[in-house]
């Protein structure tokens, strides 16, 4: 794998994570991000994933993974067990978001949250002019097959953090082309936040 082949959102997280730290990746999929973090930043990483085939792929990569729901067993870790807990592209699929974020902020010193921005202008067009639930690059599913339970925008998440007194340490918003610096809630497809309690 070359640097260019690493997903843009993974590159952002790779930049943020301190070398040699401990990481818990919730909803780690086939373990791409964990793999890169261990290779590049020498982190001690652990993944949680519900999909059986993905777990098998993680094991083949040599990763330490736990087979199960994100929501189950997260609170079993001691406080500050990890330097980072990562919820990348998984937050919108969790049933009890508030509880999981709370637990993540408890067991991790910092939490990385990455999610698709529902207020991207393409989605807005599709709702406004097409009158249809948006199907875009970041939200590629039809309404009847989406795994997403929650639809949120970058502004929604920022508001949520303000309400719950969660500190936003860093944020980077991405479109297909790269970092979005202005009108991020309109032009970004993905928001990635580094937050702490």
């Amino acid at each position: 794998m070359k640097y260019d082949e690493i997903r843009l959102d993974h590159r952002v997280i790779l930049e943020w994570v301190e070398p040699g730290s401990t990481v818990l990746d919730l909803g780690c999929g086939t373990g791409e991000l964990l793999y890169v973090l261990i290779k590049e930043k020498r982190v001690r990483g652990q993944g949680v994933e519900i999909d059986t085939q993905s777990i098998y792929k993680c094991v083949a990569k040599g990763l330490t993974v736990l087979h199960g729901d994100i929501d189950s067993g997260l609170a079993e870790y001691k406080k500050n067990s990890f330097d980072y807990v990562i919820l990348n592209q998984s937050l919108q699929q969790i049933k009890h978001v508030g509880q999981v974020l709370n637990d993540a902020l408890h067991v991790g010193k910092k939490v990385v949250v990455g999610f698709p921005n529902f207020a991207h202008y393409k989605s807005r067009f599709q709702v406004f002019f097409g009158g249809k639930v948006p199907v875009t690059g970041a939200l590629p599913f039809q309404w009847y097959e989406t795994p997403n339970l929650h639809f949120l925008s970058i502004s929604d998440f920022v508001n949520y953090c303000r309400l719950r007194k969660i500190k936003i340490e860093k944020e980077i918003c991405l479109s297909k082309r790269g970092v979005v610096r202005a009108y991020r809630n309109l032009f970004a497809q993905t928001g990635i936040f580094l937050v702490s309690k």
Partner: protein
Amino acid sequence: MAGTKIVLEGDGVGLVETRYFTFSDFELEEGGRIDLVTIAYETYGTLNEKKNNAILILHALSGDAHVAGINSGQNNPGWWDPLIGSGRAFDTNKYFIICSNVLGGCRGSTGPATVNAKTGRPYALDFPVITINDMVDAQKRLVDSFGVDKLLAVVGGSMGGMQVLSWLTRYPDKIRSAIPIATAARHSPQQIAFGEVGRQAIMADPQWKYGNYYDGFYPAKGLAVARMIGHITYMSDVSMADKFGRQRKDKAQPHKFSADFEVEGYLRYRGENFIKRFDANSYLYITKAMDHFDASQGKALQDVLCGIKARVMLIAFKSDWLYPVYQSKEILKACKLSGVDATYCEIESTYGHDAFLLEVKEETHLIGHFLKKVFYEYEVTGHYEI
């Protein structure tokens, strides 16, 4: 076993021989001692010069040292044969595999059926109480005899998994990894209850005679019933329905209460087969050892696991109701709290507890990759440049 056709990858180990290791003065956990202990074992593959490629496989209640290959003059492959051999999960090109029959067993190791040198008669119930930890201590003597200081892995399912946990918690510096499969840190009341019904079946058999049956008739009926109960708990509702349904046996039966359903015939067959190869007293001693086992040694399990460097891979099966997944998750929880590096996999299977002997493809993948990681000491596989 449900007798599924298993497509084998790689080559098996072929013709193998059971060997015997003897040592003296063995002190037991509960206070007794055995003057002379023999442990039956088999090995496959070659111990390398560094002696860092040895894997110990631990068998379940009714298993034995014959885990792979074929013994001369017999055609039964070992109980985990599809996983062991060249190119298989336990790759005999790389690793040196040891499997021994447990202390208290009846498949070549010292147990209640062994003749006591002092009396010239089988021990029977004079055999001292043994524990899972005693079984492990006897294995350790065997492992030491090979000059192996640190095992690459200890692996086992069910009671074998309990021995894995005993190794992990009592000899953490003597192993680099542990793979407990379909097991528990301690038996639940339900598991103890099933053990007790099995024991009662044996002891209710008039031929049992307080264990002194070696010169006369054998408590065959009692042991067969114990085995039948066991087999019910090893399968699942679904696997029984798939295997037998409500099929009637085709032979006309001459009397009432005969085995007219397929499942009845199967259980009877399993029971009758078992008495040919298993000692009733061994069954009593070993099931008691399982019931008394507690990996947490009276503390919280996470306190016992604290500071352990060995890597752990826990495997559980969704349809296993004898050793339900929650018991593996309890071990996982203790690993999380103590900071032990643990991977946990829950395999989709309808076979029930028997799955650990049958889900060969999944276990091959998980165990094979995990062992490679531990053996080559890599964090993650492969190479790429940035």
